[in-house]
Each structure stands twice: as C-alpha cells, then as structure tokens.
C-alpha cells in the first residue's frame, strides 16, 4: 500500500476531526457538513485501499498489527457513518473520530507489506472470524465513546451533544449490535479452531479473554433492563467493557505472551 495514500487518508480524517472541533466554537452548519463529507471521502478511500490490498493478496490481509489497526479504523469509520446517518450525531462524532485517528496513527509508522498467509489461516472461517471481531470491536469503541459523552453531558447539559435519552439509546444499540457481531466472530473462530487444532475451545489466554469479552457484553445486553443502572452505570460499564476489549486486542500481545496465531 502506498504510504502517500495512507498519509492522505490520515490527513482527510484529521481535517474532518478538526472541522468537528471548530464546529464546537464556531457553530456554522456548513463546517459540520464539510466534516461529514470529508469522512465519507475518507471511508471511500479507505474502502478502496482495503479492497485493493484484499484483491492483491488474494485473501483479507489482517494478519499483522498494521493490517488489524487499519481494518479496525475502517470498521470504526463505517460504524460512525451508520450512527451519523441514523441519528445525526455530529459533534458526538468528534470523539469517535479522535479514536479513529489514534488507530490510524498507530498504523502509519508500521510496515505495510502483506505477509505470506500461513496455511492455518488460509480458510474463509478465519476471514469471517476477523471481520466480525473488528466490526464488533468498532461498535464497542462507539459505545465507549458514547459512554464518555453521556457522562460529559450528564455534567454539562450542553446543546452541542445529543440529549441523555438519545445518548443512552445509541449506547444500548451499539452494545447490542457489537455483541451480535462479536458472537458471530466467536462462532466462526470456534469452528475454525476445531478444524485447525482439534478443539473448539481451549484455555489459552487469548481465547479465554475473547470469551470474557463475549460474557461481559452478553451481561450488558441484560444490564440495560436494570432500572437503576440505566444511563450512568451503563455508560461506565461501556467504558470498562472497552478496557476489556483493548486488553484482549492489544494488551495480551504487548504485555503477555500468547500463542494465538495473530500474535
């Protein structure tokens, strides 16, 4: 992948994020609109880059940290677009797009070459496992952002952000959709593990933490029914949940050693 295009993509997202930031202080609708248009352009460019890498490699290239950060960033941008088109969340997007910049920024200095696919990963089950996992993670990241904004809004009561019931609604939706997609990731991963290693679940640290992520968000699909937890506690849980996701995705690889094929 050309580094120039990658930097162009980063610049587009950076300009969009700056636009949203500017919109907070200079409330002109065309600023927010321009930011949104930039994000759409960024998503189109990122989709084309991802598609090109997929086509060139002959398989979905998500086998190293650059590729997963890039894919995660793409999924997060798409998730943002989904919520923006549905709820017109505008300034709420600032936080999500900042997170996206962190992901893409983390990918920029890394080696972009597509490594040769090891035979164990050469199955559509692996692609499904990865696609669903990162799209699920993107929704959890969205829920995290919304959780933070919910807590801000509860303190500030600002017109810049959607009202609390809307934020709560978006948060619950992000958690539910994330859980559903992550569930599909777990099913594909278990079938793949069965054919690749002869067991559908094994007690290695990455698999154990993936189950923990799943259980946590399954719990959250129910926690919204508890009246006293709706809103504030739920927002905190969304933040904690994303901590579990980050530890599973990055922490295990960076802090602990894992024998998961992606580490």
């Amino acid at each position, binding site marked *: 992948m050309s580094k120039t295009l990658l930097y162009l993509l980063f610049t587009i997202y950076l300009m969009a994020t700056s636009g949203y930031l500017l919109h907070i202080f200079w409330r002109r609708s065309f600023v927010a609109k321009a930011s949104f248009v930039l994000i759409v352009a960024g998503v189109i460019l990122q989709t084309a880059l991802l598609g090109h890498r997929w086509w060139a490699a002959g398989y979905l290239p998500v086998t190293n940290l650059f590729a997963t950060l890039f894919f995660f960033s793409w999924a997060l941008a798409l998730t943002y677009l989904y919520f923006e088109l549905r709820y017109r969340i505008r300034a709420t997007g600032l936080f999500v797009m900042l997170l996206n910049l962190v992901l893409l920024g983390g990918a920029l200095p890394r080696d972009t070459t597509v490594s040769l696919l090891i035979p164990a990963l050469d199955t559509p089950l692996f692609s499904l496992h990865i696609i669903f996992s990162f799209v699920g993670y993107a929704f959890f990241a969205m829920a995290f952002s919304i959780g933070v904004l919910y807590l801000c809004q509860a303190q500030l009561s600002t017109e810049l952000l959607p009202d609390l019931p809307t934020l709560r609604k978006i948060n619950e*939706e992000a958690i539910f959709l994330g859980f559903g997609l992550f569930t*599909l990731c777990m*099913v594909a991963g278990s079938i793949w593990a*069965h*054919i690749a290693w*002869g067991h559908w679940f094994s*007690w290695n640290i990455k698999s*154990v933490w993936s189950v*923990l992520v799943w259980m946590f968000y399954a719990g959250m699909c129910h926690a919204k029914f508890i009246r006293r937890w709706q809103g504030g506690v739920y927002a905190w849980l969304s933040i904690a949940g994303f901590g579990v996701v980050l530890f599973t995705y990055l922490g295990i690889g960076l802090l602990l050693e894992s024998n998961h094929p992606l580490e």
Partner: protein
Amino acid sequence: MGSGKWPKPFLLKLWALGCSLKLAIALASAATLLIMGGSLVMHYNPAIFSGMEQEIMGQWLPQAWSRAPLLVFWVPLSGLCILLFALNTLCCLIDWLTMLRVRWRKTGEYLVHAGFVLLTVAYLWGNLSGFRSGPHRLAPGDRMSIPNMPGYLLQLEEFTPQIEPGGRPLDMINKLVLWKNGRQVLQKTIRINHPLIYDGLVILPSSYGQDIQGFRFHMPGTGFVDLAPGSRLPISSDVTLVVHRFLADARQDRQGRVMEIGSRLNNPALQLSLLGPSGTIWQGWYFLRRQLPEGMVKAGIELRPVEPVLTTFSLLTINRDPGDKMALTGGFCITVGVIFAFFSFYRKRRISDRPEI
C-alpha cells in the same frame, strides 16, 4: 404451616430465582471476575497451567488440583458459576417456551439462550468423556490403535510434506485410513484445516520429521543399493549380506561393544552378517567412516557410502470430543438467533417492549 401446603410457594420461589435476570447478571459477573483474575494466575504459572491446553478439563483439573489447589481453585469455582448461569438461562428459556404463543417474536433471543445452554452441556460432555492426544508418530505404512477407543485402528498410507522453495513448511498431506473392528470405515486425505472427523474423533496433522533409516552405497558393477535394518543383499549365488541394525551415531568401547550415542548423523554404523550355504561366514559392525571390515573385503564386497536413507514421518494429533455435534448445533442456534435478534431489537424498541427490573 401444613405439610401439604409449603412445597408450592417454595417451588415457585425457586423457579422465580431460576428465572431471575438479576441472578444471571450476578453469576455472569462472578464468573467473569474469577476468570479475569485466573487468567493472570494461568499466565504466571505455566508449570501448572500449560497442560490445560493439551488435556481435557476432566483430566487436567484433578492433577492440577492435587499439585496446587490454591492456584487452581478458581477453575472449578468459575465452572460452577457458569454451570449455574447455564441452568439460569435454561429456566428463562423454559419460561419463554411456556408462553411461546404470545412471545414467538422473541425466537431470535431465545435461540441465543438455547445455543448457550447447548454449548455449556457440550463443553462438559467433551471435557469429561473425550480426550486429547498426540503428537503420534507415524511413517507411511504404519498402523496404530486409537487411544481410549478399542477396535479403532488408524493407518497412514502416504505422507507428503509440502515445502516452499525457501524451506518453510506449507502443508502436510496425509492419506489416512480408519478401521473399526477390522472394517475400513473411512479413507481421507487430511491436511492443515482439513482434518478427519468421525464419531467425535478429530485427526489432524500437527508436524512432521525425518528419521535416518539406513545408508545408500555405491557398489561397483551393481549400482546404488540402500542398506537398512532387514535388507538382504545377494553378493553371489550363495552369499547374502544381511543388515541387522543401523545406528546414526555409534561408538565402540575398548571391549568392542557398540553403543548408540544419539539419533543425529555423526558416526554411522551397520551391524551386518554374511550368510553362506553352510551358515554365517562373518558378522560384525561396519563403521562407515572407517575401512570396510576384513571379513567383507575377503568376501569380495566393495561398498562406497553415498548418502543417508531418510524416511519422513508424520506427527498427528488425535482428539475426541463426543460433544462436538452438540456444540455445532449450539453455534448454529446462536448464529440464527443473533440474526433474528438484530431485527427484533428494533421492533421491540419501536413498541417499547422491554422488561424493566
């Protein structure tokens, strides 16, 4: 309280507890926290926990418990929480089934619940009565009986490792035949991600290696000959060279005794005998780095060592999980359930249908 009266409210209370969503959250949280802490204990105590991946839980847990109960206690405890959680889920599921006529629109959610119950039972089943074994070493032509499954035999017919030009192994192609009580039940070529699956058995390639079986020689007038244990080489119409043993790395002590030092090629030796019409003419060791023994020279034999004869063997993993079909059914229920639930989520939201506790 009359004896005929008390069971009803008690059972009702018990059922209400079984269906309690708060209990579900408490149990799931307890299991999550226990496993979170446990996973770190796992990571820092590989001596105790490394077997957890190689064995089924039913085998690993009793051993680990007897060695370090304080490090391992969280495993059965979290297992108990998950079991109770699954029971809790089952109660919710039954509760829903009893009102299916009015709640059928929530089929998606309850397929997810049913799938989770199936997965828990399948895990228990597989981890109490299955096994994980290997790596099993098989050379082409070898047969082995499957551990813990009397009557089952596995034969490796052919083995071809695929290696890329750089030397990196790409794949391991094993042509296998499975026999049950003397009858061939399955023949399958397995390779990475394409295991043999039969009756809960999963047989897959895990690695491979090479053994030095013997040595190739050049024999003027005859050409190349391979000598390995069991080979018989006719020298003339009434003299035959018989190979008894081959050692890749051998040493001879002062008393003339020959012993094996290792399996890597270093100082190869063959134990040979020359058979004539009236019995053994000569027998002894031929160290390939030395001259040909006198007895062989006298018999007119000329041998020049060329290269080792290698046989490639396959290493296979053989696992059995009798609950695998149930787990797959659970996975299927969850997948379909999630897809349905994507729709019913929005429907429920539209009509403000949600339990509040």
